[in-house]
């Protein structure tokens, strides 16, 4: 009876994973077929070929896009870690009037969908003259309520006596932050970093709005362009580019999966 039930579960899980993975797998297979094979609707390539990858790099400045995406995602991640951890430190360890109220206001901003703030943000960036520049792609994403929340929950687990001991022995706030708080919060920091990097890497709307220059455009926009450049899209090339764009995401996910799950769970249970 139990074996039967387990078997049923696994069959169901397998079916689900096939459905979910099919588009990804098909994209990978398409990127390895030649144009004729794609148009004839084959599922499995007859002649394995890497032409599409060559074409992708030739038809669009894919290398440039990838670098832009990487740089932007990296800087957003770094900035978020710095801003969130400093803010969370203040909310946990420093005493100032209305501390908890400020924190709840900060958390409440999570209720506002990001899209609702796109227009004011865009106007600000435009007024600062930051359109078509990396800085316009990066800075608006540094402050993040979720990051502050996640790290605050982590920092709260650090015994307060450690902070008091530091105060007594003349270890300043910043030194305590660097030498004690950050090393003790590695898991949560990695979680936030992975989450932020993926978030930034997959960003589409914002880069589309504030850039129209190949020199700063990110790979997600590049993909869209590749698809619409020609009337009859060469799907093999688009899929090749998509696979390339997907790689860092997958690599990061495999590498950080365990930490990510641990960190997110920690935040959820608190």
């Amino acid at each position, binding site marked *: 009876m139990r074996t039967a039930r387990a078997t049923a579960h696994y069959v169901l899980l397998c079916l689900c994973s096939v459905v979910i993975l099919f588009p990804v797998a098909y994209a990978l297979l398409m990127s390895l077929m030649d144009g004729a094979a794609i148009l004839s609707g084959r599922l499995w390539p007859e002649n394995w070929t890497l032409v599409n990858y060559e074409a992708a790099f030739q038809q669009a400045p894919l290398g440039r896009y990838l670098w832009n995406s990487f740089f932007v995602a990296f800087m957003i991640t770094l900035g978020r870690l710095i801003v969130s951890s400093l803010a969370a430190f203040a909310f946990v360890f420093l005493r100032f009037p209305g501390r908890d109220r400020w924190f709840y206001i900060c958390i409440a901003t999570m209720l506002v969908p990001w899209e609702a703030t796109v227009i004011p943000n865009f106007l600000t960036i435009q007024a600062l003259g930051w359109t078509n520049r990396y800085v316009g792609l990066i800075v608006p994403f540094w402050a993040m309520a979720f990051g502050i929340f996640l790290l605050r929950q982590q920092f709260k687990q650090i*015994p307060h*006596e*450690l902070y*008091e*001991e*530091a*105060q*007594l*022995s*003349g*270890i*300043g706030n910043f*030194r305590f932050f660097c*030498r*004690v708080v950050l*090393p*003790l919060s590695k898991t949560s920091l990695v979680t936030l970093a992975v989450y932020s990097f993926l978030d930034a890497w997959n960003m589409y709307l914002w880069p589309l709005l504030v850039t129209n220059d190949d020199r700063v455009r990110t790979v997600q926009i590049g993909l869209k362009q590749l698809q619409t450049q020609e009337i009859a899209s060469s799907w093999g090339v688009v899929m090749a580019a998509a696979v390339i764009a997907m790689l860092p995401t997958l690599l990061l996910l495999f590498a950080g999966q365990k930490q990510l799950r641990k960190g997110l769970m920690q935040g959820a249970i608190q």
Partner: protein
Amino acid sequence: MAFLELVEVTKSYGGKKSAVENVNAAIESGEFFVLVGPSGCGKSTILRLIAGLEPLTSGYVLIDGQVANDWPPHARRLSMVFQNYALYPHLTVEQNMRIALQAQKIPKEEQVKRCMEAAELLGLTDVLHRKPRELSGGQRQRVALGRAIVAQTPLCLMDEPLSNLDAKLRAKMRSELRRLQRQLGMTVIYVTHDQTEAMTMADRMMILHDGRPQQIGSPLDVYNSPDNTFVASFIGTPPMNLAEAHVLDHSLLLQNERPIRLMRRSLPKAERVIVGLRPEHIEPAELGGESMAVKVSHIEWLGNETLVTFELAKNLYWTARWNGQWRIRLGEVVPLAFDEQALLFFDERGKRIGTPSIKREEVRIRQ
């Protein structure tokens, strides 16, 4: 001049009742001063007020004769040993001891020297490169102590440092701690809820109850001459025997039931009193004469002594402590005699009648 003075120190957290009220004390350099009381009596709060981890509501903290109320914690030049040790879990023993010295920009050779000396003193040389979780409870305790020693601050605050250790180790660390303190000439303010720790370690102690100081004095003074019934029952194991009594001409009537004739002792003028008597002042006696027959209700044999609990009046149980091993059965009726001179009298509100044998500290304020 006292090294540390507390003058009318009061702390309240917005509620009606203060957590700490009107604490006065003068602590001399090199003294081992113990704050003792049941949990929630405000003893840890006093420590935190001295350390500057919490602001005072009113009163003064004087360090070396200067008002230190507004000094930040590190400017007070003191170290603290926390109950849970507050060791940095990701740093090794050596790093734990040196991190504060690094922050104070003390030269590296000096850091290493102090660290080595402290490790030697505490027997931690072999574990310098281990992390706290790889140490036993006693070793962690020593590391916390080591951190206080390398800081070389004149004053060290200890917040129940031994309460996480098992009984045997605790007894060993008590004497070790005292030996170290004398050797280094440190001034220590030590918080504990354990009256045995207070009795065995203190030069002087302050007994606290509900945030209010009850008595300050040397352990023996406090033991022999408690100012009130709280101190009398808190200090000493088993605690002092207490009972309400009517004062008659030449005798006391305990709980309207049990008369005690007093031959050689003048009685207080009050009509109703509370009498107190330490267990060691109740002795076995011969039948007849001045003895009193009581029924034994509980016996504890400790090997070198026997604790005999008996019912003196209805629901009034007193305990006697007799040297040696006594073969007594439960329910047996035994004759007892009291040491009259050892009787203490308190008024109905628990305050000692007659002048306490030791005077309260005089605390002066200098500003």
